[in-house]
């Protein structure tokens, strides 16, 4: 390779490279940040926060109903079956609920699964 005859402007060249590369990396940062914002917003929209809250609330409310054997449509079992059917058809979610009483405490297991998000909880009363 031929020897450079004039190397006076080395600093100017170096600064030019530094400025170019910093601009380049800043552009990458700006680009990535908007993608991150979009995926975050999408993830928040798809996360069924309100569905889980609603199902949880109404299931806990339903555990305070009593079964009345004198009616065909006894309360608690009917209501929980209706919740299960409606959640499956309107919210694409599988709901499971079961209660066990140990001593004075009632443990209610709540399961929610819509294929993407699963939520499990054991609700203790009192």
């Amino acid at each position, binding site marked *: 390779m*031929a020897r*450079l*005859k*004039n190397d006076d*402007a080395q600093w100017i*060249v170096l600064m*030019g*490279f530094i400025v*170019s*590369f910093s*601009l*380049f990396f800043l*552009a*990458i940062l*700006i*680009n990535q940040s*908007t*993608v991150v*914002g*979009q995926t975050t*917003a*999408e993830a*928040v*929209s798809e996360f069924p926060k*309100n*569905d889980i809250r*609603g*199902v949880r*609330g*109404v299931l806990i*409310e*339903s555990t305070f*109903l009593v079964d*009345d054997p004198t*009616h*065909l*449509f*006894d*309360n608690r079992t*009917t*209501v*929980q*079956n*209706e*919740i299960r*059917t*409606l959640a499956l*058809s*309107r*919210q694409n979610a599988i709901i499971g609920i079961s209660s066990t009483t140990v001593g004075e405490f009632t443990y209610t297991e709540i399961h929610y699964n819509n294929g993407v998000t699963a939520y499990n909880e054991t609700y203790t009363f009192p």
Partner: protein
Amino acid sequence: MVNEGGQLYTIEGVAAALLLLVTAYFVVNSTSVYTPGDTHLSDMQMEVIGSDALAMMDTADNITMTKSPLRQIVEQDDAERFNTLFPNTINARTEDTQDDIQYVANVTYVNPIDSTITSTHLANSTRPFTGTEHAVRVSRWVLIESPPFPEFSAGNTKGMHAVLVEVLLWRD
């Protein structure tokens, strides 16, 4: 070559041109990505407003009242009251002017005769829902007694029933 002075300047010139081009590409690309992210944010906001409004309507006025306004509305199929309470909540702003969010509300229940799912219209705003709107859906579970739906007219359907109030919200 007769004269090879200024080779470094040429290399710098080519490199800077390439970098500027790539930078411009990235900048243009990133601004076009920004719009869909923005739409999701306003969807999220409207979803929060709607579910909060339903939560407020599903809260009884005081401790002596056992039924929340929303439960009374569903039990009596009271579209007029829904059309008063719901828009007042979702369209409220801190300044004087009201927002203009449109909605259509349905009640979904399980038919006690053959256990099918049935949706019935509850209330809607002044503008009809055509299906092309960019709407968000909010829902609220309500436990009701004596449902007003025709399938429940038989005497053996006493007791509580779970129904799902679903509201579509959109701006136009």
